[in-house]
């Protein structure tokens, strides 16, 4: 398992570094110029989605399974 982890971390580091050097990016928006922007966006969006969904669920939307009878 630790071996798998190290392989993944290596691949991960490789893609991040490639993002700095590979040319030919379609840049439409200013944030696309930031290298590695997508990884931060992915991480932030992931946590935001879970946070938004869970708090919506717990504060408002969750009901017991037999709610509709």
């Amino acid at each position, binding site marked *: 398992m630790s071996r798998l982890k190290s392989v993944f971390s290596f691949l991960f580091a490789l893609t991040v570094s490639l993002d700095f050097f*590979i040319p030919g990016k*379609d840049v439409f*928006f200013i944030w696309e110029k930031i290298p590695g922007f997508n990884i931060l*966006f992915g991480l932030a969006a*992931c946590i935001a*989605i879970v946070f938004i969904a869970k708090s919506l*669920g717990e504060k408002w*939307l969750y009901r017991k399974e037999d*709610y509709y009878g």
Partner: protein
Amino acid sequence: MVEWIPPWLIFIFGAAFVPFLKGRLRNTYLLFLPVLAFLNLINMPEGKGYVMNFLDYRLILCRVDNLSLPFGYIFVIITFIIFIFSLHLKENKEFALGLVYGGSATGVVFAGDFITLFIFWEIMAVSATFIVWGNKTKASRDAGFRYILFHLVGGVCLLAGIIIQVYTAGTTEFNWTGLNGTGSYFILLGFAINAAIPPLHAWLPDAYPEAPVTGAGYLTAFTTKTAVYVLARGFAGTEFLAWTGAFMAVYGIIYAMLQDDMRRLLSYHIVSQVGFMVCGIGLGTAMAINGAVAHAFSNILYKTLLFMSTGSIIYVTGKRLLSDLSGSDLYKKMPVTLVLYTIGAFSISGIPLMNGFISKGMIMYATGLQLHGSIHLMLGFASVGTFLSVALKLCYFAWFGSNKERAVEAKEPPINMLAGMGFTAFLCILIGIHPKILYDILPFALDYQPFKAAKVISTILLLSGTGLGFMLIIKKLSPVPRISLDTDWIYRKGAKKLISIMEIPITRLVAGINRVVFDLLPSSLSRASKNPLALLKIALGKVFLQFAAPEKREEIIHRIMTEKENYPEYTIKRLPIGTSVLLTVLFMLIYLLTYYV
């Protein structure tokens, strides 16, 4: 000799014979029909065919062009796939319904005029309802009723719109309508219900998880995608739809996070994925429309694959909730199904070399070309959510999971189910690595490079960021046995509450009217008629009281009180009858005298 016939005719006519066939003959026949339909499709020349006149209207039963053909192809292919997947069924009913449903969906995409379109639209709603009912549970029966009611409302909106539109435009032909005039608003409303645009989407996650394992495949493929087709045909470039689509994409993934039922979770992803398509249609450029059509094509493949593979779990284990499956180590017992599911999950997440990557990429690229920054970010957000809940959460909790004490009996599903899923997975990858097959059938000529190194890397980065987040907060994601409220609350609970709220004032009003008209009024009238003179005296007394000198007031008040106490008895002394006779005689005497004088 007839070179080609309307493709829906093969399906709907073919369905009529299904009930009489059995065993191997039935299976051969079922697999032969989509093949025949596909050969027929390839043979169809572009243009309008089977034009006829009906009650002064021109009906175009078959309009073949670059927009209707891709939908036609995929509808026929997916029918073939679902037939393979459900060959183990003993009953013939679902096959016949599937043919009618698929046939009417094909009819909608090839209909060249509103009247033909409407007829197929309604057949589609009815056949889909019967497919939902196929599960024969109370839940599926109720969900089916809600489904048909919702779609009949949609149908009525559409019909109203069509009537107004045909009346004002003077033609029944179905072309680009755009948002102008009352008719077009009603038509859009009818289409929006089938496209499951929130808040009109609740029928979808309500009915689809209740459908049979096999029948759900048809549902995922036809209704929403025909809606995408009609929107692309009639409302391309309506900016409102671009924003609506982006909203749908986000709405779907947020709700999907709350679900415990596997197929309900995937149903919310249909809403989200259709959001991508609706967004592309709203943008309206050639690239965006191409993206929307390509995404519909890809979506039918991978979404059906996902429904089939989660359906296989339900078929084998009888369990549909993630909270019941988590920790049952299904990956050991159903490894092939797991691989097939993963291919579907990777496709929907848009991982490179899968079909989702090339079609979703086109829509994202189109938002970039038009510099729609916020829509671009919303769709990116939705992509993260899709990967998170389909490829990571559902996959982890259904096949692996942390609750290790659970033992669930399971084995691979029958070979025909595996074959159906395998073929779909093959198509997902084939289109993913050789997108030209798909690009060649799109409505517009295409200038798009999916496999740019930078693009592949940025996609991988986005998804690795998501994966990282998943590992950090995996504990938060454990499925909870709960359902979540959605807009269907309005008609499932709210309607009852509304009725009880309306009932209270109405019943009070009716009771009040009853009391006044039938009780108070007659009794007071009868009481008043007993001694109207006394009442008059009381009333006069009250008037006098206003103007009386202070020293007289006591006396008047006393008089009124006495009258009231004695009512309805007479307080004044009554004269004997003789007095009246005397007065009468006197009066007549005076009369007589004046007459003579």
